[in-house]
């Protein structure tokens, strides 16, 4: 039979200071782990939500991102005319866009960062149904006007509504609108007329990518085969969702691995902390354990009791760490997107899976940190109770 759980709970409460100190150590580990997982989730969500499965993106063969791709302007029409592309009133639905990065000054932090600038066509906004103008208006086609994604607005000098930035020397562009796109990576971009981008960056005669809307999800294979078999083009087609998944996987994996390494290092420290606390507690309660043994509680019962106490302590820390990580949900984090080398803003996204992972990690720390002290407790002789 097992020692009553109230014994463990109250023993932890009696030693409030050491219990709290150990729990804070574990909370820190859980916070780091959960934050890293939340950021990786945020990266995947931000990049992933930019894509829709019924959209296909076409880039130059060998290019892994829009920025490194170049599609001749005359090829845009050819791509749009391929089988599988949805037509409305006989017109294929698709856009050719040019993507460049420009160095701009960060606000609130010293330094320069890269910002993605998307040269759009008249159809770009309507092509993406989630795009909403939050403030101001859409830029006038052909005018030196731009709109900025909500996440990056106000973070970069000149990129707030009513401000101007120089797209090239002595060519100011006015910010006339701020837009959202359901949390996607586009919210970290500046959109303006493709013609202005091309002329400003010497990209005349070409775009970076062509996006088309497919007749159905099943039409992709037909479209892809048609694009990739056409020897004149030298282009490759992907579903937009796959494209963004590839863009985000390296970055999210990097964050996950880095976060996990940091968390594991911290966890070793926290487990040692938990073990020291439990060792000290057991040394202090040697006689109590002896009494339990004398009364007839088995070694296994004592082992389970002290393991439970250690797990409870760790779980308390885990809940504190998870609560702190939950607070990170309100934080936005700006970092360089390694696929486009441009500034991108991410959110920390907490999911039930991350919550469970964090709490399981804290339980594991409690079990591992508490095992050796619990074994020591179980080895206590019942004669200890008799010694004065």
């Amino acid at each position, binding site marked *: *039979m*097992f*020692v*009553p759980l*109230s*014994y463990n709970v*109250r*023993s932890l*409460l*009696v030693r409030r200071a050491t219990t709290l100190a150990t729990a804070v150590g574990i909370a820190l580990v859980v916070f780091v782990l959960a934050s890293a997982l939340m950021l990786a989730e945020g990266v995947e969500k931000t990049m992933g939500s930019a894509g829709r499965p019924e959209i296909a993106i076409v880039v130059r063969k060998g290019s892994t991102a829009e920025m490194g791709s170049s599609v001749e302007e005359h090829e845009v029409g050819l791509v749009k005319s391929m089988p599988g592309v949805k037509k409305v009133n006989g017109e294929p639905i698709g856009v050719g866009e040019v993507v460049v990065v420009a160095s701009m000054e960060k606000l609130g932090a010293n330094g320069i960062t890269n910002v993605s600038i998307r040269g759009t066509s008249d159809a770009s906004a309507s092509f993406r149904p989630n795009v909403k103008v939050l403030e101001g208006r859409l830029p006038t086609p052909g005018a030196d006007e731009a709109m900025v994604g909500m996440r990056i607005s106000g973070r970069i000098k000149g990129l707030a509504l009513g401000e101007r930035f120089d797209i090239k020397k002595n060519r100011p562009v006015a910010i006339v609108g701020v837009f959202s796109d359901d949390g996607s990576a586009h919210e970290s971009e500046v959109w303006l007329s493709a013609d202005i981008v091309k002329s400003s960056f010497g990209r005349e005669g070409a775009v970076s990518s062509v996006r088309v809307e497919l007749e159905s999800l099943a039409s992709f294979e037909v479209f892809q085969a048609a694009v990739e078999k056409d020897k004149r083009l030298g282009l490759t087609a992907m579903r937009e969702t796959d494209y963004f998944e590839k863009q985000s996987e390296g970055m999210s994996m990097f964050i996950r691995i880095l976060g996990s390494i940091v968390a594991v290092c911290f966890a070793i420290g926290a487990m040692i902390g938990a073990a020291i606390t439990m060792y000290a507690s057991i040394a202090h309660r040697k*006689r*109590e354990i002896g*009494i*339990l*043994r*004398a*009364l*007839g*509680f*088995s*070694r296994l019962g004592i082992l389970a009791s002290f393991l439970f106490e250690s797990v409870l302590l760790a779980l308390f820390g885990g809940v504190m760490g998870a609560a702190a990580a939950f607070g990170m949900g309100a934080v936005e984090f700006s970092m360089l997107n390694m696929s486009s080398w441009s500034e991108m803003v991410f959110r920390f996204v907490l999911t039930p899976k991350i919550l469970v992972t964090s709490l399981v990690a804290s339980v594991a720390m409690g079990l591992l940190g508490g095992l050796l002290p619990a074994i020591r407790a179980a080895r206590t002789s*019942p*004669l200890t*109770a*008799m010694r*004065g």
Partner: protein
Amino acid sequence: MNEVSPAGEPLIRLRGITKEYTRGGETLRVLENLDLDVARGSFEALMGPSGSGKSTLLNLLAGLDAPTQGTVEVDGKRIDQMSEGKLASWRSNHVGFVFQSYNLLPVLTAVENVELPLLLTPVASSERRKRAETALRVVGLTDRMGHYPRQLSGGQEQRVAIARAIVNDPLLIVADEPTGDLDRASADDILRLLETLNRDLGKTIVIVTHDPAAAERARITHHLDKGKLRA
């Protein structure tokens, strides 16, 4: 007072008991070829100078330790041959312990401390609480059930310890210096209580004591010296 055990089958029968400890490579013989019978329903005291082996003897007959040589039989069972797990289970069913320093768990209330031995039995939780309350009533602590040990006097703590010792209706109660930490008045109360348990409830009690007043309450007193029973 030093009497011969009453006639009849003894509850405890120790034969040829030798107990040795090895410390720092040196073997220390604490008990040597000792025989002892304790009759059922008896109240017996073990006295002797420090280091005479009386606590070791108590530990052996309570199943807390095993002899180096010899046999320990309690109620017809050879407890010296039991595995550690079986012995723990046997103790929980057949022995009640009273210690010099009371040895209550400080984070549990009086009634929870008394309930502890019952957790090792199949008794239902509501019945456990009833029995613990009854045991506390027997020792006169009905009004202290929800108190923690730190809220009780030494005498009251020892009464709780006695309630814990009797709650599972054991064959045998062993007490190691039960009055050692108490003032005279509290010590007398505790001794009266043990006497009542022996006389009215028929409990077999073996105590280790330095206190002649405590030994006088016992029906039989055994004197130990250098690991041997003095005739």
